[in-house]
C-alpha cells in the first residue's frame, strides 16, 4: 500500500506542477509553438519519468539500474549525457516573440522566427553576427577587407570584429590578459558553484542515509559509497567549470570562431545537440512499437503471421539502408517542393523533415530488433510457465502482455542504447550525402559539410570542424560507454564483453 501512496503522491505533485507551469506560462507575452518533434520529445520524457517512477517501486527493475549506477565509467557517461539532455530540452521549448505594436492593431502580432529557450538564453551570441570568417577568440576578421580611412584613402587590412573582443581597445596587447582574467574569474565562480552543489548533495545524502554530514562527507570523499559519488562530483566539477568558462568567454569572444556568414560556430554546435538527440531517440521511439509487436507476434503465433512478418522484414532489410533513405528523402523533397502551403514557418518545415528522417531511419533499423525479439519470443513460448498459462486458459494477449513482454524488455533497452550512438553518427553521413536534415537546420553533419568546402582554403578554416568534432565525439563516446554499462547490467550472458569485465 505504501508504494501505491508514493506513486499517487508523485503523480499528484507532477500533475499540479504541470498545471501551475501552464498557468504561469500563459502569462508570458510570447506565443508558444509546439513542433512535431518537440511534442514527441516531451512524450518520450514523460514516458521515461513514468517508467522511472514505476521501476523505483519494483526491486527487480531497480537492481540492474543500480548496477549501472555502480559502474564508474557508466556514471561519468550519465553525467555528460544529462548535460547534453538539458541543452537539448532547453532547445525544444519553442516560442515566437511578440512584435512591437506598430500598426496599433488590437491583435498582437508575432515574429515569424521560431525561437527556443536556448536561443533566448544565448541571445548575445546568436545576434553577435560578424561579416565572415573569424578565428576562435579573434578580434579581427579572417579575411582582408578594403576599408576607407577618414582622410579618404583606402587600405586593405583585417577589420575589427563588431562583437568578438569589441570591448578591447588594443586587442594585440590586451587580449591574452583579458582571456586569462576572465578564465580565472570563471574558475573561482565555478569552484563556488561546485562547492554549493557538493554541499547540497552531501547533506541530501546524509539525510537519506541517516548519517551526520561530516561522516557522509568522509565516506563520499574516500569513495566508500555504493554509487561512486566522488566520481560524479569530479565530473560535475569539470562540467560546471567548463560551462561557466564558456558562458563568460562567449559573452566577449567567439570561442569557436564564426562561419562564412559570420554566425557564431559555438552557437551552431549547441543547436546541433538537439538535432543529434532527436535523431538518436525519436528514431527508436518511432520504430519501437512496430518492432516489438511484429517481433513478438512472429515468434509467439508462428504460422502465417510469422511468414508474413519475416517476409516483410527480409524485404526491407535487403535494401541497403542508405539507398532506401536516399530514395525516401528524395521523394519527400519532391513532395515538400510541390506542397509549400503545408508549412507555416521555415522551422516547421525543417522540423517535419527531421521527423520524417527519423521515421525513415526507423523503418530501416527496426528489422534487426524485430529479428532478435522473434527469436526470443520463440524461445519463451516453450517455457514451462507459459505452457502452464496456456493450460490454464489465459488469453494470448494476456500472456504476451504479462509474460513475454516483460521478459524481452532487456533486449529492447539494450538495442535502444546501442543504436543511439550509431544514429548520431549516421546523421552526419546522411547530411553529407544530401539526404539528411534540412540544410537550414543546425546539425553537425551540415556543419562538417559546409566546412569541408573550405578545406582547400589557405590558411585553412578549421574551427567549425573542431567544434563539431568535440561535441559529437563527447556525445557519442558517452553514449557508447553508457551503452556498455547498460548492456553489462541487463544482459548477464554478455557480461564478459564490457569494459569493466576486463579487470
Amino acid at each position: 500500500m505504501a508504494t501505491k501512496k508514493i506513486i499517487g503522491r508523485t503523480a499528484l505533485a507532477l500533475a499540479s506542477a504541470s498545471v501551475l507551469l501552464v498557468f504561469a506560462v500563459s502569462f508570458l507575452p510570447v506565443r508558444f509553438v509546439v513542433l512535431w518533434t518537440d511534442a514527441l520529445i516531451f512524450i518520450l520524457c514523460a514516458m521515461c519519468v513514468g517508467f522511472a517512477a514505476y521501476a523505483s517501486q519494483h526491486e527487480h527493475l531497480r537492481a540492474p539500474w543500480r548496477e549501472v549506477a555502480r559502474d564508474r565509467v557508466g556514471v561519468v557517461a550519465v553525467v555528460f549525457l544529462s548535460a547534453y539532455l538539458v541543452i537539448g530540452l532547453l532547445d525544444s521549448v519553442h516560442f515566437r516573440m511578440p512584435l512591437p505594436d506598430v500598426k496599433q492593431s488590437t491583435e498582437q502580432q508575432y515574429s515569424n522566427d521560431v525561437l527556443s529557450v536556448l536561443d533566448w538564453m544565448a541571445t548575445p551570441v546568436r545576434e553577435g553576427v560578424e561579416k565572415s570568417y573569424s578565428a576562435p577568440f579573434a578580434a579581427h576578421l579572417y579575411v582582408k577587407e578594403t576599408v576607407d580611412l577618414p582622410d579618404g584613402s583606402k587600405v586593405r587590412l583585417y577589420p575589427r570584429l563588431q562583437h568578438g573582443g569589441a570591448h578591447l581597445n588594443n586587442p594585440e596587447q590586451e587580449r591574452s590578459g583579458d582571456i586569462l582574467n576572465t578564465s580565472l574569474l570563471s574558475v573561482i565562480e565555478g569552484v563556488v558553484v561546485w562547492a554549493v552543489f557538493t554541499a547540497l548533495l552531501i547533506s541530501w545524502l546524509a539525510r537519506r542515509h541517516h548519517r551526520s554530514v561530516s561522516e557522509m562527507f568522509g565516506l563520499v570523499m574516500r569513495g566508500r559509497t555504493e554509487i561512486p559519488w566522488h566520481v560524479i562530483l569530479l565530473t560535475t566539477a569539470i562540467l560546471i567549470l567548463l560551462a561557466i568558462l564558456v558562458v563568460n568567454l562567449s559573452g566577449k569572444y567567439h570561442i569557436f570562431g564564426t562561419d562564412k556568414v559570420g554566425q557564431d560556430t559555438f552557437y551552431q554546435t549547441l543547436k546541433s545537440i538537439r538535432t543529434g538527440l532527436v535523431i538518436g531517440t525519436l528514431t527508436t521511439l518511432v520504430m519501437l512499437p512496430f518492432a516489438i509487436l511484429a517481433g513478438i507476434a512472429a515468434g509467439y503465433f508462428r504460422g502465417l503471421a510469422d511468414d508474413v512478418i519475416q517476409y516483410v522484414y527480409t524485404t526491407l532489410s535487403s535494401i541497403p539502408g542508405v539507398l532506401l533513405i536516399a530514395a525516401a528523402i528524395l521523394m519527400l523533397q519532391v513532395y515538400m517542393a510541390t506542397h509549400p502551403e503545408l508549412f507555416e514557418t521555415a522551422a516547421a518545415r525543417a522540423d517535419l523533415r527531421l521527423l520524417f528522417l527519423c521515421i525513415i531511419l526507423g523503418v530501416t533499423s527496426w528489422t534487426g530488433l524485430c529479428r532478435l525479439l522473434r527469436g526470443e519470443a520463440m524461445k519463451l513460448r516453450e517455457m514451462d510457465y507459459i505452457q502452464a498459462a496456456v493450460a490454464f486458459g489465459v488469453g494470448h494477449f494476456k500472456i504476451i502482455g504479462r509474460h513475454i513482454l516483460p521478459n524481452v524488455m532487456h533486449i529492447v533497452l539494450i538495442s535502444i542504447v546501442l543504436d543511439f550512438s550509431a544514429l548520431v553518427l549516421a546523421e552526419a553521413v546522411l547530411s553529407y550525402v544530401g539526404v539528411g536534415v534540412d540544410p537550414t537546420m543546425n546539425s553537425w553533419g551540415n556543419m562538417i559539410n559546409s566546412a569541408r568546402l573550405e578545406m582547400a582554403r589557405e590558411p585553412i578554416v578549421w574551427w567549425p570542424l573542431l567544434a563539431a568534432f568535440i561535441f559529437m565525439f563527447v556525445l557519442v563516446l558517452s553514449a557508447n560507454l553508457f551503452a556498455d554499462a547498460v548492456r553489462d547490467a541487463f544482459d548477464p550472458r554478455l557480461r564478459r564483453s564490457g569494459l569493466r569485465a576486463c579487470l
Partner: protein
Amino acid sequence: MINYIIRRFFYAIPILIGVNLLTFALFFVVNTPDDMARMNLGMKRVTPEAIEKWKHERGYDKPLVFNGSAAGSEKFTDTIFYDKSVKLFVFEFGQSDSGRDITYDIKQRMWPSLVIALPILLIGLLTNITFALLVAFFRATYIDFWGVVLCVTLMSISSLFYIIGGQYLVGKLWHLVPISGYEEGFDAFKFVVLPVMVGVASGIGSGIRWYRTIFLEEMGKDYVRTARAKGLSESLVLFRHVLKNAMIPILTGVVVILPLLFMGNLVLESFFGIPGLGSYTIDAINMQDFAIVRSMVFLGSILYILGLLLTDISYTLVDPRVKLA
C-alpha cells in the same frame, strides 16, 4: 546441396518482387511523374508543355500499371510499371533522367568501386583479427582494458573526420599522395592508397571489439579448456583452436558483404573523387536523378540477397556440422 541452392534461389524471388513493388510505390505513387518533372525543371514558371516533353523523353508519360488504350498484352506492357520496374529483373536499367545508359555506367563504374572496397575489406580483416587476437591473448589485463578503451574511442569518431583528417595530413600537409582523383591501370595505386588507409582506420575500432567478443566467447568453451588441460601453450590454443573455430562467425559477417563491395562506399568515393558506383549514387541523389537511384536500390538488394545465399553455402564449406537439406 544443389537442391538447397535452387530452393534458396526461388525463395529470393518473392523478396525481389517485394523490393521492386516497394521502389515502384516510392518513386511513382507517392509523387506523380508530374511532380518529378516540375522538381527537375525548376519549381517556378514551368509550362505544361515542358512537363509533357520531359515526361515523354523519359518514358514517364504512360499510365502507371494499366494502359486501357493499348491493344492486347500491351495493356500491361506499355506502362511505367512494366517499363521501369519489371525490366529491372533482367538487369535492363534503361536510361537515366539525363539520358545516359545506366547499365553501361554501372559496368564502367563497378571496377573502381571494387578496387577501393576489396583492399579495405582484406586489409581491415587482417588488422582487426590480428589486434583482436592480441587483445584476447592479454585478456583481463591492463592491455586489454586500454585496448578496449582505445577501440571505443575510435568508434566514437565519425567516419567523416577520418576522411577529412587523412586528406589533410597525408594529402595536404605531407604531400605524399594526391588528395583526390583516379586513373586507370597501375597509376591507380597512388590514388587508392589513402582511401584504403582511411577506410581501414575508420572501421578498426568497432572491428577489433567485435572480433574480440567472438574470440572471448569461443575461449569460454569446453574444448579450449580441454586443450589447455592437455598442456598446449596459450598461443597454440589461440591460433590453432580458437582462431579456426571463430572463423565461422567471422565468415558470416564477411561473405554477406562480398557482393555489396561492387556498390562501393558512398562517402569515401565522393570525398576522394573515385569514379565508382558510390559516387555515382551520390551524384544521382544530388542531381535528383530518380532513374539511377531506383536502379541502385534494386541492384543493392539483389547483391545483398546474393550475399545471404553465399553465406549459407560457405557455412557448409567451413563447418561440416551444418548440413543443408
